[in-house]
């Protein structure tokens, strides 16, 4: 007789999806929120059009007030390095 596992099945988790530039443009055109997570001074110098600044260390405190949970969110930083 096989012992039944007592471990509950892992619920399906949403995984952030990696996207490219073209997909980004399509999502933004359909209302996605664009978020730069670099420090604010980096954002001030250059950011993608219509992006908002939400530095990584402020995400916990400010994400839910700055962003709409019901709309898609796209995050970006400098590059993949």
């Amino acid at each position, binding site marked *: 007789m096989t012992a039944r596992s007592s471990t509950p099945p892992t619920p399906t988790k949403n995984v952030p999806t990696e996207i490219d530039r073209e997909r980004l443009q399509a999502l933004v055109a359909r209302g996605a929120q664009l978020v730069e997570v670099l420090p604010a001074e980096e954002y001030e*110098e250059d950011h993608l059009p219509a992006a908002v600044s939400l530095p990584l260390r402020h995400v916990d405190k400010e994400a839910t007030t700055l962003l709409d949970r019901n709309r898609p969110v796209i995050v970006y930083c*400098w590059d993949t*390095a």
Partner: protein
Amino acid sequence: MKNKTKTLVKCVRCGTPIESCAFCDEPGCRTPTCYECVSTVLVQAKRQPHTHGG
């Protein structure tokens, strides 16, 4: 068969031996610079943010 020995020069910024300057690719360049240093200077005009952690 005679092996060709490549003459290497040193990057003026970091000292890495290189075949030719990555910026101008001229054999007689007086300030030969390696690819890494060229990229760093030209991109650092934008200030690298990864000193804050990637």
